[in-house]
């Protein structure tokens, strides 16, 4: 696939948000990748290891949550999970809808803002960061 390009996008987006939050060094990035998505976790990790040296991501850990394919049947409500993509409900045979497995998003990142921990306002910092990061 195009994992190098995806990781470059992740780094660009995280860098932008990190800068806006005064974060000088990123220590961890967490992605959520559905198994129905074409992006391959090993290739994403490889891309991250290639692109991170001499950036704010140097030494950072990339964590990837791999989300299994989940289907829900609108007729009988049954949920099923599987690697193989039969889009029919195993309970009633109706057509099931994909409810998980196609994700491709940045969940969160962790970093260091280079400031001394004053022992307060940690939660507040998180909240304001979340708000600033939440916009388009």
């Amino acid at each position: 696939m195009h994992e190098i390009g995806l990781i470059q996008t992740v780094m660009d987006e995280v860098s932008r948000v990190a800068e806006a939050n005064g974060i000088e060094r990123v220590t961890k990035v967490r992605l959520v990748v559905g198994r129905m998505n074409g992006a391959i976790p090993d290739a994403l990790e490889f891309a991250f290891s290639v692109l991170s040296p001499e950036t704010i991501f140097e030494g950072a850990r990339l964590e990837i949550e791999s989300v299994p394919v989940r289907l829900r049947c609108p007729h009988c409500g049954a949920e099923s999970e599987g690697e193989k993509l039969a889009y029919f409900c195993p309970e009633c045979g109706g057509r099931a809808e994909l409810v998980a497995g196609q994700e491709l998003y940045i969940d969160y990142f962790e970093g260091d803002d280079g400031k001394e921990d004053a022992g307060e306002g940690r939660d507040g910092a998180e909240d304001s960061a979340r708000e600033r990061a939440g916009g388009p």
Partner: protein
Amino acid sequence: MPVKVVMAQKILRANEQVARENRERLQHLPTVNLISSPGAGKTTLLEKTIQALRGELAIGVVEGDIYTTRDAERIAGQGAAVVQVNTAGLCHLDANMVGRALDQLDLDSLDLLFIENVGNLVCPAEFDLGEDYKVALLSVAEGGDKPEKYPLVFRESHAVVINKSDLLPYTDFDMNKVQEEIRTLKPEILIFVTSAATGEGLEAWCAWLREIVRHKRFVTG
């Protein structure tokens, strides 16, 4: 001090934004994003389609190719408006590339636009370009295991063209089984069986294209 920042942001968000802009620009022009592996016959199908609809529909083509202009030259040879997009190694077209190509077309003069994606069944399925319909093209010569191996492109497509039907006697391609597998992935999908080489099945394919042109005119005026 350590800080955690929640983003919950789609990696392809920027592409989706540009795809929405493309869709806005294409609101009066029915657009088909044609996806297949290399050599399945996308360009030949387009050549034959342009021939069949000549004098009836003005067709434009955004021609994706990794390096060359060979396909665009073939399309231009049929008299269609064509814009070449070279991805320089990238495995798919993205919305930005298509947006830049649209700048070079007189959209108001066209009745139907094709986007011929880069030959690849994996990555193009992930990228919205602003099209109305994705169409997956599969050729008999590639073997019948493609729907099972590349389910996403079939899930995302409105129609499938099974091309090179003239080669059926020379392969172990099981037409019924493949169609059944495609319908397992997407029961309501349209399936066209064609041979761009002999012209078999092109009439039904062209009838669908006329139908989507009529439909969009009806919906958007």
